[in-house]
């Protein structure tokens, strides 16, 4: 599992490759917080290559969303597979996040 962070059209894009779980969630959190501290305000987390997110991973996303909002920033999630969508719906976190079907769709809402 790994995270790839890069900037595209003024948006910090984070690709999560593998699983976002209790064992690696702090790494994702720190990477995003570093960018936030550096002044970035638009974030997109792309789950196209993510197999699973556990409750700790969901918790980190909730926490990041709050911190980004507090700094006047925006966060979008994209490319959730069927299992991940079910997790977001069961936990009602689909009502807390803006979730796009594709990266392009998410980028368009951050423009």
């Amino acid at each position, binding site marked *: 599992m790994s995270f790839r962070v890069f900037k595209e059209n003024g948006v910090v894009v984070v690709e999560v490759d593998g*699983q976002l*779980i*209790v*064992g690696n969630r702090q790494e994702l959190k720190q990477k995003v917080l570093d960018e936030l501290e550096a002044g970035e305000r638009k974030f997109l987390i792309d789950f196209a290559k993510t*197999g*699973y997110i*556990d*409750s*700790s991973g*969901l*918790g*980190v996303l*909730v*926490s990041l969303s*709050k911190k980004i909002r507090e700094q006047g920033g925006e966060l979008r999630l994209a490319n959730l597979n*069927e*299992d991940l969508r*079910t*997790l977001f*719906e*069961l*936990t*009602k*976190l689909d*009502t*807390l996040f803006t979730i796009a079907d594709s990266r392009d769709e998410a980028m368009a809402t951050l423009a």
Partner: protein
Amino acid sequence: MYRVTEQDGREGAAHFVVELPSEVRWIEPVVDYVLGRAEAFAYAGPRLTLNLRVGIIEALANAIICGNAEDPRKRVRLEVTIDAQRVELEVSDEGPGFSPDQLPDPTAPENLGRPCGRGVYLLRRLMDEVRYNERGNAVRMVLYREAALPVR
């Protein structure tokens, strides 16, 4: 390292115990191992990749983090029985236990923004049977091959 011990089981079933140290890095390999054993019984699709995975990962994380407070001297025990109809799991730790019925509902509007408290809720939504022992340091779960009701 985690350790797997095969147990005597009924005919046509796999019965084994996995013991692991209380370190979160062992969760992923143990989950992959058990999912692999279930695949050998032709479990597939979301019942395998979502329901069973959630059951194991959340129960192990609770046992390691909340139960054993990540003390590597303490062990977590996972007992598994798999047959053609169902997967039975029992996860136990060496901690003092907790009261699973007193947890707040993480989907209530006032709790949606909280970073914690979704593990036991997900277990209960995605496994078919979930029962804690009286002390609250062991949970027994059952997942049937076929879903009685859709999860959504």
